[in-house]
C-alpha cells in the first residue's frame, strides 16, 4: 500500500509518542493512564524501532485532555522533537547552504520529519505560500491545534538556532488562545491567528539567507537514506486530486485499485468524505487567488471550473462562511 492509514502501525514511536509519554510522566500522570485505550504498554514503547499508529497518538492526546499538564506541553514537545530530528537528520539539514535549500530538503523529508501534516505550495511573484493540511486523517480541532503547536515550536526553534536572521510569517487556523505567552516565548516569528488555513509565507528575499556553520559539501545525498516513509492517506489522495482536479470518486477508487464502496469506508475511517477533501483543495486555491493574486470572482470561477458565477459564490460561502467580496475586505 503506497500510503499510511490511521490504524497502520507505521510511525516511529520514538519520534513523538514516546517523548510525549515521558513528558506526561514527568508531570505526574502515570504512563498507563495516558496510554489507556491504545492497547500499548509503556515498556513496549521503549523497544528499539517500535512503531505505532496515528490512531494511537490521537487517543493519547484525547486521554491527556483529562489532566492539567500545563499549557507549554506542546511547545516543550516541539523542542524535544527538534533535538530528536537534529540528531537523526543533521547530515541532510544542517549543511543546507540557505533557506531555499532547507525548504527543498524539508519537502523531500516531510514524511520523516513531521508525517502528520502535508505542505501544499502556492507560488506568487514575491512570496511562497505553504498551506498545511492533515496528512493521515482528519482529527478533532484540539488534537490538530496540539500538533500545530508542536510543529510551530519545532520549526521556530530550528529557525532561531540555524537561521536567526530569517523572517517567516505563520498563519494559524484557531483564535489567539489564552496562553498566547507560550507563542511569544517559543516562536519569534510574526504570527496571525484565526486564519482560514494553517500555513506560512516566505518572502523570496529570505530564500538566500545563509544557514549558520553550514558546509554545502558535507550535505548528505538523499540516496543515503535507506527508504523514505510513505505519505499519509489524505496526503496521497490530495496529491492525486491536485494533479487531476476533475477526478471523480470512481476515478480515485480506480487509482487506488479499490472499489468505490471500500474508498467510502476508508474515508469514513479517516473522519472525512471525498467531497470534504475536494472542497478543501478548491477553497484553498480560491482563497489564494482572491487574497494574494487579486483575481475577480469570474477569474476564480473559471479557474476552478465553475459553470456560473452565482454557483461559485454560493459554494464559496458554504466553504468559508463568507462571500468572496467579504474575504477581499478582510
Amino acid at each position, binding site marked *: 500500500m503506497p500510503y499510511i492509514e490511521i490504524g497502520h502501525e507505521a510511525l516511529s514511536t520514538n519520534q513523538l509518542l514516546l517523548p510525549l509519554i515521558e513528558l506526561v510522566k514527568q508531570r505526574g500522570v502515570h504512563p498507563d493512564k495516558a496510554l489507556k485505550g491504545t492497547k500499548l504498554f509503556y515498556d513496549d514503547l521503549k523497544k528499539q524501532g517500535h512503531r505505532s499508529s496515528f490512531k494511537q497518538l490521537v487517543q493519547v492526546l484525547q486521554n491527556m485532555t483529562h489532566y492539567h499538564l500545563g499549557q507549554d506541553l506542546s511547545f516543550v514537545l516541539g523542542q524535544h522533537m527538534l533535538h530528536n530530528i537534529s540528531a537523526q537528520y543533521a547530515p541532510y539539514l544542517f549543511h543546507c547552504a540557505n533557506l531555499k535549500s532547507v525548504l527543498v530538503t524539508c519537502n523531500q523529508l516531510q514524511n520523516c520529519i513531521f508525517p502528520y501534516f502535508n505542505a501544499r505550495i502556492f507560488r506568487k511573484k514575491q512570496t511562497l505560500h505553504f498551506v498545511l493540511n492533515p496528512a493521515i486523517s482528519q482529527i478533532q480541532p484540539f488534537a490538530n491545534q496540539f500538533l500545530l503547536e508542536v510543529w510551530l515550536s519545532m520549526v521556530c526553534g530550528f529557525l532561531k538556532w540555524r537561521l536567526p536572521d530569517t523572517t517567516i510569517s505563520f498563519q494559524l487556523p484557531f483564535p489567539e488562545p489564552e*496562553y498566547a*505567552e507560550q507563542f511569544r*516565548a517559543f516562536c519569534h516569528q510574526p504570527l496571525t491567528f484565526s486564519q482560514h488555513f494553517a500555513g506560512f509565507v516566505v518572502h523570496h528575499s529570505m530564500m538566500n539567507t545563509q544557514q549558520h556553520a553550514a558546509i554545502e559539501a558535507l550535505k548528505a545525498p538523499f540516496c543515503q537514506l535507506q527508504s523514505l516513509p510513505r505519505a499519509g492517506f489524505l496526503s496521497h489522495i490530495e496529491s492525486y486530486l491536485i494533479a487531476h482536479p476533475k477526478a471523480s470518486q470512481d476515478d480515485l477508487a480506480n487509482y487506488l485499485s479499490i472499489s468505490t464502496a471500500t474508498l467510502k469506508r476508508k474515508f469514513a475511517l479517516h473522519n472525512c468524505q471525498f467531497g470534504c477533501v475536494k472542497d478543501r483543495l478548491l477553497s484553498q486555491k480560491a482563497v489564494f487567488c482572491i487574497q494574494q493574486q487579486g483575481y475577480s470572482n469570474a477569474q476564480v470561477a473559471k479557474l476552478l471550473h465553475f459553470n456560473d458565477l452565482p454557483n461559485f459564490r454560493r459554494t464559496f460561502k458554504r466553504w468559508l462562511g463568507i462571500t468572496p467580496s467579504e474575504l477581499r475586505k478582510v
Partner: protein
Amino acid sequence: MNASKNIKHSKLWLLLTVTVSITISTAITVGQWKSQDQIEILDAVGEGGLAIMSLIWLVATLLSRPAGRVTTALSCGLTLMHTSLLLDCLDEFLTFDHIHPTLSSLEAFPAFLGMIVMSFAMYWWYQEQTYLNLTLLKKERHFREHTFTDYVTGLYSARYMEKQINNEFGMLESKDKPFCVAMFDLNAYSQFCFKYGIAKGEELLRNTGQLITLHTRGCDLTCRYAGDKFVVLFPDTSYKTAHTITARVCEAAKKHYQYDDDLTTINAMTLSTACIEISSRTTNSGVFEQLISLLQQNKQAA
C-alpha cells in the same frame, strides 16, 4: 512489610479500619436488632449520610496531606467523630437498652473528644499556614489560585502576573505610583536541553526560578512567563532600583552552577534581562510585548 511502608499514612489507615471494624462488630454483637416498625427510615438516612460524609472528609485528608502532626491530629479527630456518627446511625437499627438504658447516650462522647483533638489540629494548621505563607511571600501577592501555578517551577504563571499587573494599574491610577516589570531569559537554554535533556532543562528552570526569587525583595513577585522566560513585578519601585536588582540577579546567576547526577559541574547559566518602568496605563499584552522586544534588542547588543 515493604508494601505497608510504601502506603502513605499506613498507621492512620490501619487505625481507621480497626476503629470502624471494632465499632460495627461490637455494636452488632452487643446490640439487639430493632423490629421493622421501630426503624425510622428518614432518621437512618440522615445519620447514615453524616457518617459517610465524615468518612469522605477523613479519606480526603489522608490522601491529600503530607505526614506530620497536623495530619495525625486531624485524622484522629475525624476518626473519633466518624465513630460517633457511625454509632448514631447504627442506633437506628440496634438497641442497647437491654444492657443499660443510658448506654445509647454515650455515643456523642467520641465526637466531643474528636472535636477537642481537631481544635488542636486547627490551631497547628493555622501555625503551619503562617509559616507556609512566609515561604510563599515572594511567589504570591494577596491572592491565591492554584490553577495559575506553573507545574515545572512551582512559581505562578503569566496569568497570575497579568492579574497582579492589572492591580498595579489600579494603584497607578488611584495613587499615581509607577511600578517596574522585568523579564529574564535563560541564554542558550535550547542548546542546554539538546546537550543534557529536557528533564535536566526543567531542573535548570526550577533552579533559575528559585534563584530569581532569592535575589529579589520580599515585596517583589516572580512568575514564570513561558519557555525559558521569567517575569518579575517591582511594585512602587523606581526604574533605577529595579535595574539594580535585575543586574544583581544576573550577577548571581553567573555564580550558580548546575550539577550532573554524578556531581559533575555542568556550567554556569547566564541571564539576559529587560526592565521597563510603567507610569501610564497600558494593556497586559502591551507590557509583555514591550519587554520581549527590549529583551531581543539587549540580547543582540550583547
